[in-house]
């Protein structure tokens, strides 16, 4: 009951409000063009006819929510998943490179964090750069990676996955450095009284202690991975993927297609973050975290 009152009702109300504003916006933004059309055709529709017309343009400036919903539904459920017009197909293309890059990036991030925590030289050499690199618009590298790798004959999933790797390893590395350093002095002293080796401390203390940090940073990383994969699909005029769908839409002013591609991308993102969240929660529960 509390959940209903505190969360579901307000969120639904705000979402409905957004849809309402969207409809008003669609009317306002599509109206000038529609007025122009009507004037040329010499028609004088009533207000309600006019409103209906602004909601049914084939290439509206701002498509109405139901137009996007219909387009999304058709391209998701009514087409064969192997069809080039199926959103499932495009989402899968993007998702596969996202996941490959995310897995690689997470592994790399953990490895770097372990190195930083255990080797003082690495800590002092690398850590400032890892922090500084967070302030750098890394995504600007994406087109170059794609084109340069294409120039030496590497195309398809790998270049996109590399961009995703690049984007996802930073948050994981930073989060894991924090996590691996999170055990308090008491626990570290305890390991010392057992004369535990560095590797034993890592496996039995530092890694388990860093699990909450790992999943928190993986949530950021998986979202960044997806952005990397989408942007990676932009520069080459890739034929498949959510980014390619967006680019095509913008070439031919297919706004409805663009919005449903965006919707697909957002759903993939939410699905990915929620998956990481659920896995994280169940791992933490298995490790005895107090249920909240």
């Amino acid at each position, binding site marked *: 009951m509390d959940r209903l009152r*505190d*969360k579901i009702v*307000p*969120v*639904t*109300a*705000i*979402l409905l409000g957004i849809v309402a504003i969207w409809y008003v916006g669609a009317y306002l933004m599509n109206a000038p063009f529609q007025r122009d059309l009507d004037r040329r055709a010499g028609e004088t529709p009533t207000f309600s006819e006019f409103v209906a017309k602004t909601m049914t343009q084939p290439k509206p*400036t*701002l498509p109405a929510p139901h137009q996007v919903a219909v387009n999304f539904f058709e391209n998701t459920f009514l087409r064969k998943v192997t069809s080039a017009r199926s959103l499932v197909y495009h989402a899968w293309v993007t998702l596969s490179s996202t996941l490959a890059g995310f897995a690689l990036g997470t592994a790399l991030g953990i490895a770097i964090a372990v190195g930083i925590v255990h080797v*003082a*030289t690495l*800590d*002092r*050499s*690398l*850590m*400032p*750069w890892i922090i*500084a690199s*967070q*302030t*750098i*618009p*890394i*995504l*600007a*590298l*994406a*087109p*170059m990676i794609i*084109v*340069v790798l294409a*120039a*030496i004959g590497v195309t398809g999933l790998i270049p996109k996955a590399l961009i995703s790797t690049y984007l996802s390893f930073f948050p994981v590395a930073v989060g894991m450095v924090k996590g691996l350093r999170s055990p308090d002095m008491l626990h570290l002293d305890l390991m010392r009284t057992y004369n535990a080796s560095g590797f034993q401390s890592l496996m039995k203390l530092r890694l388990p202690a860093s699990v909450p940090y790992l999943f928190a940073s993986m*949530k950021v990383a998986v*979202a960044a991975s*997806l*952005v990397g994969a*989408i*942007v990676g699909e*932009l*520069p080459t005029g890739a034929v498949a993927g*959510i*980014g390619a769908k*967006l*680019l095509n839409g*913008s070439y031919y*002013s297919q*706004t409805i297609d*663009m*919005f449903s*591609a*965006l919707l697909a*991308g*957002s759903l993939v*993102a*939410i699905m*990915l*973050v929620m998956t990481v969240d659920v896995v994280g929660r169940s791992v933490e529960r298995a490790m005895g975290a107090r249920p909240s």
Partner: protein
Amino acid sequence: MSTPRKMNLVDTAFQRVLLFLIIILTLLFYPLLEPPYLSGPGWQSVLILPLLAYIILVLVQRYRGTALPPVEMGVGLFLLAYVPICLSSLRGFDGEEAPRNYWTTVAACALAAWLLNDLLSGPKYRTGWRGTFAKFAVPAIFSLTLLFLWEVLVRAFNVPFVLLPPPSAIGVRIANSLPVLAADVNQTIFKAVFAGYAMGCAAGFVVAILADRFLFLRRGLLPIGNMVSALPIIGIAPIMVMWFGFDWQSKAAVVVVMTFFPMLVNTVAGLTAAGHMERDLMRTYASSYWQTLFKLRLPAAMPFIFNALKINSTLALIGAIVAEFFGTPVVGMGFRISTEVGRMNVDMVWAEIAVAALAGSVFYGVIALAERAVTFWHPSIRGG
């Protein structure tokens, strides 16, 4: 655990003297200024190889935890002497066979840099002015080593220019294209990023205050705001380009949307940061909502707000640059990157990325400085 014999090899002061001697001798006898530089008389390998062995030995001993004489100065001098030799002799053999001793010298340089960093990471360089010095020197040495290896490897192995240009070529390109780069920075950063950043952050802040006033709004907006931060917002770029045209306005619009939600979420979280005791205190004064807001809750929220400002500085740059991939007038950093990539002028792309990195760091740095000034009372700042 190490044998006493091995310890003796590096554990005495005469080793240091020997190191200096080798360096001075090599400097005297290398034909530094005439090509082909490194191909001096054959007996010099007699000097180089023990030097390499010495450095490796010192590294191994360090990781075995043996005490060492202070060799920082010697290693530093060695780097100063040999790195220019290695770099200048590159001109002699682009793609040809390397001069005698070349790779051993390069390896000695890289290892010596590692050793120097290792020494500078030791307990002696943790506090005081030495600590401050090491804090900057270590990452600097690390990055110079990377640049050095990048330059040497790319040129020695004739890596295709398209794949990876040497850093020197990028440096030359930056120096030769300053006007173009300046115009791009002006278009992308001074117009699109700043306008969008200011509007997005301000809007996020205002909505956060509203959400704070009205509980219902807060409960509805916060989950949505948290969720949106995971979405690929950058995908709205082509739509914004369609709506607002090719010029900077469309990029600013992307930046507004990207920066709005982090600001909203962080400010709302920050406004709950003031403690119960302090809030009760304000209640005992019968202070009004706005008085409490300005005197207590906003100051307490500042660390959160600055966190959002910092996150947004990076997001804004990314947003503006990527939005330019979808269409711009013929100026702008994103435009330059995408067109020069098409023409295979990768040195220009790298130059643009270097400038973007610099701009991003400066932007972030300025905000971080402002944060230090505003939230000087916060433990994370006070504690140093």
